[in-house]
């Protein structure tokens, strides 16, 4: 936004600064709830608000006891283990199948391209509660309901649209003459794929994988229905905690999850820049 011209009227000045204040308030609304839980998670009391000691910045107002609880409580540790066991496997499945299909979809001649695309994107469109209901009904018919693989397959299906979208977007900028050149120089299709195409689309594949990972890692509706107590994930444990007796440990977990999101966001941003740089280098 350009700076105010010297001839601006008082009204224009008020609007200029007023608009910035409004935007500041909206940014505050966006970020405040996420930031506020960080100090609250260090509360020495079992309260969800700032104690007078905390406001006075006294050391005894703060403690790590909620983090300690998270790392020692068997329920939370079990949930953490389950999340770590489920999300990476689901991610590998969706990235593996998804990347292959995205390469297929970006060919010049694909029959029924629109219909196929609609089917592959549909897990992202259909409301989660409907996916969860359908999977619950169908997976209990075939004996997958309440099993580890049931949850993994369901999460992989939910992650696939993100992989498809990010990888096809990367492939749009991919210069096809590179693969032709490789073939011309005698490389087979497999070698061309791993030596030429894969390094160039890797940023897209990784960010698709991160999306798929976070989808599975954050997912709670589907796992509530498809999973059983043995597959209780971190979000599920948080959900029950919030619904029944809300314990401040949730805030400690939330803070840790915010840290994970920041790490993911940074990775994605770095990948995006790398991808742009690589594309800038390739001719055409």
């Amino acid at each position, binding site marked *: 936004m350009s700076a105010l011209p010297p001839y601006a009227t008082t009204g224009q000045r008020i609007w200029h600064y007023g608009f910035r204040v409004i935007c500041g308030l909206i940014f505050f609304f*966006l970020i405040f709830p996420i930031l506020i839980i960080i100090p609250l998670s260090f509360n020495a009391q079992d309260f969800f608000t700032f104690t007078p000691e905390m406001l006075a910045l006294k050391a005894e107002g703060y403690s790590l006891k909620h983090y300690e609880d998270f790392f020692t409580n068997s329920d939370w540790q079990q949930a953490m283990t389950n999340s770590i066991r489920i999300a990476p496997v689901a991610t590998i499945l969706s990235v593996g199948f998804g990347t292959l299909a995205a390469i297929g979809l970006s060919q010049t001649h694909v029959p029924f391209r629109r219909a196929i695309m609609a089917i592959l994107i549909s897990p992202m469109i259909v409301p989660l509660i409907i996916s969860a209901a359908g999977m619950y009904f169908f997976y209990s018919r075939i004996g997958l309901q309440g099993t580890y693989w049931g949850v993994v397959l369901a999460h992989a299906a939910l992650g696939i649209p993100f992989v498809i979208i990010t990888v096809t977007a990367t492939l749009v900028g991919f210069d096809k003459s590179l693969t032709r050149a490789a073939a011309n120089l005698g490389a087979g299709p497999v070698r061309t794929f791993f030596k030429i195409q894969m390094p160039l689309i890797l940023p897209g594949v990784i960010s698709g994988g991160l999306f798929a990972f976070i989808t599975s890692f954050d997912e709670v509706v589907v796992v509530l229905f498809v999973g059983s107590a043995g597959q209780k994930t971190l979000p599920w444990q948080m959900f029950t905690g919030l619904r029944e007796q809300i314990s401040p440990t949730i805030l400690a977990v939330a803070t840790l999850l915010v840290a994970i999101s920041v790490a993911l966001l940074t990775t994605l941003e770095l990948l995006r820049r790398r991808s742009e740089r690589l594309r800038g280098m390739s001719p055409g």
Partner: protein
Amino acid sequence: MAPPVSNMTDATQTGPVLSADGTPLKRSLQKALFRQKMRALALIAPLLIFVLVTFILPIGDMLFRSVENQIVSATIPRTVVALETWDADSGESPGEEVYAAFYWDMAEAVEAKTHTRLGGRLNYEMTGLSSLFRKTGRGVSDIGEFYMDQLADLNDEWEEGAFLADALGAESWVSAATDAAANDVTAPAFVLRDGVADALPLTAHIYSRFAAQTLAEKDSPLEEDPWEAVYTALYQDLISNPNAASAVSPAAANLFTDAAAAVPNFENIGFKEQFIDIDKDWDDPEAWQTIQAYSSAYTAGYFLAAMDLMNTPDGIARVDEDERIYIRLFGRTIFMSLLITGTCILLGYPIAYLLSNLKVRHANLLMILVLLPFWTSLLVRTSAWKVLLQQQGVINDLLVWVGLVADDSRLQLINNQLGTVIAMTHILLPFMILPLFSVMKTIPPSYVRAAKSLGATNWTAFWRVYFPQSVPGIGAGSILVFILAIGYYITPELVGGTSGVFISNRIAYHISTSLNWGLAAALGAMLLVLVLALYWIYDKMVGIDNVKLG
């Protein structure tokens, strides 16, 4: 006659163009194109099959369940057939043959314990049927016992499982089963004696069912007491065929002959009377009307219920005023989703405008403030709001401290519609800002400058020149936010209380608490149609391929 000119030139001058290996170029190209298409499909196929199996089939299963109603015809098949000829409008309960069919069905259903599920299913259509079926389930064994006792009065042998197994089973099976019992292993599958099925048809059928189920439970029919219904069947069969004794094993023939002579003098009560004795509701045509109305394998009943309608003898009618919940819930879901979309436009538009008009370096920095919430776990954000909005939470504390609110009248900000709207606006705001931002980035600033240089005030330049160009962004963002909002489950469940819940919460309730899966599926199907229609509009406006992430 001279050939047409074009043909002549083709043949004489150019001829078909050939590729290097001598095949016509056209065919060669077609082959290459075909190979290319097949290669693309081969790459897509694994994922397509994966998504079809893990996702599309489940959705199809849900749609199927919303109309599926095989439980009635599967649990009481004979009754369904017998009821076909009964006139539901006659105002009278059906005749004896329906009750007889119902008895045989119930006898099997009670042993398989499926009658309570059927009662539960029919209870959705007529309250009270669930308990009626439970009560009847306990009552049907008395009917069989009535005949069993009379046979046992002739000879105690009749009560022995081994006696009936020996009388009705094939000799080879009886010896194999005796060996199996001695070695403590499960007996082989039951085989009827030759001729029993013709001489004692009812007994043969029900006894075979008994034997099959007993064996499935790893017990031996030689040791278990037969079902009571077997004795009802024996009574009926011996009445209609007094010479049945010739078909059973020689050792049992004497007892069968005696019984055949005695049964005409047995006390007998008709099935209709027996059922009315169990519960007088069986005399009421209404229960039978419900069974008849819902006996087909497919039903629109769940969809009717999902729209607050019901099937009555006089056609489709609305349910009572105080039971109409689903239309109201759909209405509330749509209204609140619209409200959330509206607040998202209101809050998202200034942010997107600011971001698209700042220098790229500054915009990228501020963009982090939008992307961080976008990337933060949904549950983290919901728990943050739950903590903030509580009566003893940070916001109420702050208001009390400032003095806007008295300590004893803290605001109720959560567990109502307000809580849902605040939390969901926060969660969905990035989905509004990002599409708006990408549209606003493409609006050339020179247009607004041109308008101003032609004398437009700031407001006119914005409203007449800038705003119309940003409308596609509003449209895309709004549909996205609306589609996401309308299917939300977690946030309304946690911060919505009872007044702030959506249709999704009701679907979840029917799946996991009330176990009315058919109704859950019907509600889900309606929500799905709504979302797909909106998505179709979104696709027309923006295109699926243009969905951007982050």
